[in-house]
């Protein structure tokens, strides 16, 4: 309905291959960015920024990471939490060992550390597939979390086994982590990093490497026969996916909670990210954001609903009901649209583009 595509013809491949080839989409994206960069920091409350927006961004990044591995390359992983933990602890070790290291560099390096670990745990993917692989990634999940909990070196021998983000600035006195950092600064930093990394991810999935991943996902034998090297491709997916999860983990520890223990990245975290990409849509960068938004907002809505409706229910019961409803919703979603919110959006957009015609 709002689309006016007549006249938006492409005279170059660059324009034809743009991420948002339609002008109305470009405008929409610009508006979203404007809201995210201007309206949110100005109008959003601290609560809103700290408990909704920052976790939303962090989860989105992790979901992009998992989506690269599972949605694009077709390798089911249940070890996302562990890769996030790698990033978190690497960032902690890096920032404490090299206090002068710029926070951006530290974050990216911690992503690299997670990527290295990802490669190691991705090695079995050459031999094993599907659920066997999923179970194998659980090995990473349990082993790594155990490792971070048991080896005091990772926490700089802290007695509590908890790490806290040291105060760090991007430039000068502009603190983005630690006690001095305002929620706005932390939010904007996360936003920028996530936006840039999301763009890079989008670029990868629409390039040769992304097509290799999808080829392996859709039909690995055919992929190999046209010249794709399975191990290298799968490992690249593991590495890049783990990089994203690692950075997300570091953001989690440094920008969201501030302090973190290995338990924060347990198997439930892995499942949580997996829901995001399933509900958001496998094989879609947009889906990662939609799924993260959904999973972040859902518990908040669920936990407030009885209060808002004035139902006299004990908090314990509420938490049980919450879990139940959550499970039901997942099943409901899978039945209604197994391809997730991203597919729903695509269908909706297609309708808008063809409006008023049905096809």
């Amino acid at each position, binding site marked *: 309905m709002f689309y006016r595509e007549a006249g938006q013809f492409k005279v170059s491949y660059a324009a034809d291959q743009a991420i948002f080839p339609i002008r109305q989409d470009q405008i929409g994206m610009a508006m979203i960015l404007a809201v995210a960069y201007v309206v949110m920091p100005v109008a959003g409350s601290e609560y809103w920024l700290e408990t909704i927006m920052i976790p939303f961004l962090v989860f989105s990044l992790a979901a992009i990471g998992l989506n690269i591995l*599972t949605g694009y390359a077709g390798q089911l992983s249940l070890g996302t939490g562990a890769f996030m933990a790698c990033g978190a602890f690497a960032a902690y070790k890096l920032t404490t060992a090299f206090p002068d290291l710029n926070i951006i560099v530290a974050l990216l390096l911690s992503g690299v550390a997670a990527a290295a670990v990802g490669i190691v745990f991705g090695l079995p993917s050459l*031999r094993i597939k599907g659920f*066997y692989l999923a179970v*194998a990634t659980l090995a990473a999940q349990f082993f790594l979390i155990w490792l971070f909990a048991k080896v005091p070196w990772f926490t700089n021998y802290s007695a509590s086994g908890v790490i806290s983000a040291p105060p760090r600035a991007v430039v000068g006195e502009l603190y983005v982590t630690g006690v001095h950092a305002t929620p706005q600064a932390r939010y904007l930093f996360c936003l920028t990093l996530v936006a840039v990394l999301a763009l890079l991810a989008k670029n990868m999935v629409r390039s040769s490497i992304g097509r290799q991943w999808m080829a392996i996902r859709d039909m690995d034998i055919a992929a190999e026969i046209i010249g794709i090297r399975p191990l290298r491709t799968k490992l690249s997916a593991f590495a890049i996916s783990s990089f994203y999860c690692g950075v997300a983990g570091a953001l989690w520890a440094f920008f969201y909670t501030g302090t973190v223990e290995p338990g924060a990245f347990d198997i439930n975290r892995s499942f949580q990210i997996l829901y995001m990409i399933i509900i958001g849509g496998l094989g879609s960068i947009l889906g990662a954001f939609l799924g993260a938004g959904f999973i972040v907002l859902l518990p908040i809505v669920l936990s407030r609903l009885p209060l808002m409706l004035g139902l006299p229910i004990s908090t314990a019961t509420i938490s*049980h009901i*919450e879990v*139940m409803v959550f499970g039901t919703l*997942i099943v409901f979603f899978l039945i209604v649209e*197994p391809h997730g919110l991203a597919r729903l959006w695509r269908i909706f957009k297609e309708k808008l583009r063809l409006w008023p015609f049905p096809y």
Partner: protein
Amino acid sequence: MEGFLSDIFIAPFVSMWEYPVFLVEVLVGGLLVGVMYSLVALGFVLIFKASGVFNFAQGAMVLFAALFFAGFLEAGMPVWLALGASAVVMVALAIVTERVVLRPLVNQPPIVLFMATIGLTFFLDGFGQMIWGSDIKVIDIGIPKEPLEIHGVLINSFDIVAGVTAGLLVAGLALFFHYTKIGRALRAVADDHQAALSVGIPLQSIWVIVWSVAGLVALVAGIMWGSSLGVQFSLALVALKALPVLILGGFTSIPGAIVGGLIIGASEKIGEVYWGPALGGAIEDWHAYMIAMVFLLFRPQGLFGEKIIERV
């Protein structure tokens, strides 16, 4: 560092050599725990074999069954009635699951069904605890817990009962699969859905039956685990222990689930007792997975799984 290496590579073996009776005790204890793993893994295998669904909710079903059983006991039911009532609950659960979750998702890719069972897990956890509360419940059905000494080896009599029960269950299932019409049909489904349809059994009924059987297995496992650990949320996590068993045994092999369970149980106990202290403890969380993963690299289809021949 040297001490650490010695703790890993020398001390455990020395200790095994020096105290063989203790080693046997540990081993037997591990094997008996392994039997319990097998019970849970069995539920997985049944469902995966018949419907190709990777049922993550098996652990939740164990908790769910145990909660109901313990709840019925607390409500004053006699053991046999509580057992019957819980069985009815599990069959009802199978029917509802098939109708509400599986049927609408038929023909969806495996990962979607897998996700649906995770949804089911959440539902069962929430629902069970909403009804029965989240306090720890005790199941006491009169199984003796005194240690027994056989040839100088101390064994918990409860473990023996559990082992025997599991063994009987497995034997029963094996008989069921081999000698009943339904059992044969189930095996046919596992091999080929089309073939199953030609036998004349609707897929839906087969799914209900197999989920019911898996539910009953979960009930038995729940009673066993519940008696030994108490009924609480952590029971659901037993499922995570069953996963390496599956890898080891193969997703589709009943004997694989048994043998895999025994191996995992035994090695876990031995690892915990002999290597745990050196590594800082709590290694049972992951070391079963590590064993399974290393194993997978050499035999991707598991111990008893069918060899995968790739076709073009």
